[in-house]
């Protein structure tokens, strides 16, 4: 082009960018309500425990807090949490990367997708926990069977989610890229993957608890460390507060991780 002069934007009103309106109605109030719900729940539990129900069965928030405090002081909680976190994180990573790669590579081909679909669906139907004894047989009682179970638990969810994302990519975007001379790899990286990312993220958020379920379930069957072991061990000693404390710690971790994923999601999808 050799018309080097800058052209003015001709029609003012029509060309003005559409103003962004981000409405977060009563965010503070929601936080307050949440705190009220938590306080009421814990208060009722504390009041009922020892009056209506024997604390042997239901423990009490104060006893649980005491147990958590002792465990934190002694470093016991940190050690076990870290083990479970490690197993889940590695399993989660392996499972989701494998699932995303698999879905991306076959998702654009209708034939490949339909060939694979019944097999994946069949295996998906198997309760993953039922595979734990097999993995323990194969991989012993170390970290490996927990990682594998976490990975398998996450894989299917991620696979199906990524697949639906890949299938819903706007083909007009792909056509436009093709017309500009883009290679299939470029289209895969710059169009299909970003377009499927919202689905992938939904998969990640849904899959995270599944990863923990896999790891903890395997720990409960054969292990001497991790949150699964801790609950099992406490229950064996009739320590109700200990069971609740271990679960509570796990709950805190998953909530924090989910929150982290939420932040990442908001940053990645700032274009929306």
């Amino acid at each position: 082009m050799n018309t080097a002069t800058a052209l003015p934007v001709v029609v003012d009103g029509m060309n003005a960018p559409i103003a962004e309106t981000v409405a977060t109605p009563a965010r503070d109030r929601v936080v307050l309500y949440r705190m009220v719900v938590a306080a009421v729940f814990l208060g009722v539990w504390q009041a009922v425990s020892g009056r209506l129900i024997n604390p042997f069965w239901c423990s009490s928030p104060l006893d649980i807090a005491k147990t958590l405090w002792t465990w934190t002081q002694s470093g016991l909680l940190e050690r076990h949490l870290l083990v479970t976190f490690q197993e889940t994180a590695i399993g989660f990573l392996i499972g989701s990367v494998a699932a995303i790669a698999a879905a991306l590579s076959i998702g654009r081909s209708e034939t490949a997708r339909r060939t694979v679909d019944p097999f994946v669906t069949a295996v998906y139907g198997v309760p993953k926990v039922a595979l734990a004894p097999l993995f323990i047989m194969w991989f012993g009682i170390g970290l490996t069977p927990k990682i594998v179970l976490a990975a398998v638990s996450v894989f299917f969810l991620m696979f199906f989610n990524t697949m639906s994302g890949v299938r819903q990519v706007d083909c007009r975007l792909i056509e436009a890229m093709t017309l500009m001379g883009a290679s299939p790899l470029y289209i895969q990286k710059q169009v299909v993957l970003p377009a499927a990312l919202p689905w992938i993220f939904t998969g990640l958020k849904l899959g995270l608890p599944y990863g923990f379920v896999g790891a903890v379930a395997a720990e409960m069957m054969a292990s001497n460390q991790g949150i699964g072991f801790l609950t099992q061990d406490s229950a064996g000693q009739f320590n109700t507060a200990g069971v609740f404390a271990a679960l509570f710690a796990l709950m805190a971790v998953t909530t924090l991780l989910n929150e982290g994923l939420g932040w990442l999601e908001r940053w990645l999808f700032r274009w929306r």
Partner: protein
Amino acid sequence: MEESHARVEDPFFEQPAPLARLCHVRKSFVSGGKRAEILSDINIDVAPGEFVSIIGPSGSGKSTILNLLAGIDRPCAGTVSYDGHPVAGVSGSIAYLTQHDSLLPWRTVADNIAVPLEIRKMPAAERQRAVVDILAKVGLAGYGGHYPRQLSGGMQKRAMLARTLIYDPRTILMDEPFGPLDAQLKLALQAELLRLWTGTGKTIIFVTHDIAEAITLSDRVLVLSAQPTRIKHVEPIRISRPRDVHEVRFAPHFEGHYRALWNAIEMRREEAAA
């Protein structure tokens, strides 16, 4: 008329060798077990640097003609050639601006416009310079950091135009690029297109519904018939350039061109009624 090459209709020009050429092209699709003939013996020659518009009823195969030239569709019979060679696939020297919004919503305007350069593996620094340059040319200076959804429809069209122009294609195919815009904005973008095109020697093949738009922009307007499509009429536009989009309709030849094109379309209606 449809038996001869459309270009021959115009005896006033000494024509150079055609850049794009459709020769006895037929195209039919099979849908629902029925064979529908879309194009029936189409002959078109487009000279280098020419601005040709194609008008015709919807479903008359206007887009199909562009798809054939772009290399994303093949003729059932006849030949489509570009620059002396048969069109065999997508070419780097032909750009295609479709009517859909095809900006990537997750990329900023600047990153969207850089896509063709990325595909051509241009270094990032050079890419950035080219983007800043083209943004200014299409009147989007300062909007490089915006995401497509933050832009109005007209600005999105400008961004798509910038993305098309940035890799300097020799020929641009445009499929109703200003279709859904309101009249005022359409005129603004037509003016911009003319300014950006003037003096570049680029060849533009422009599909539209709008007779006035076709006259305003083109050197030549082809009218397609209803299916099976043939070229019904060829109208060389005798309005001198440079043209002012607001003044063109008061040019002495405008009314004559408009009547001729309108009649070509009217005849088709009578045929349909008969």
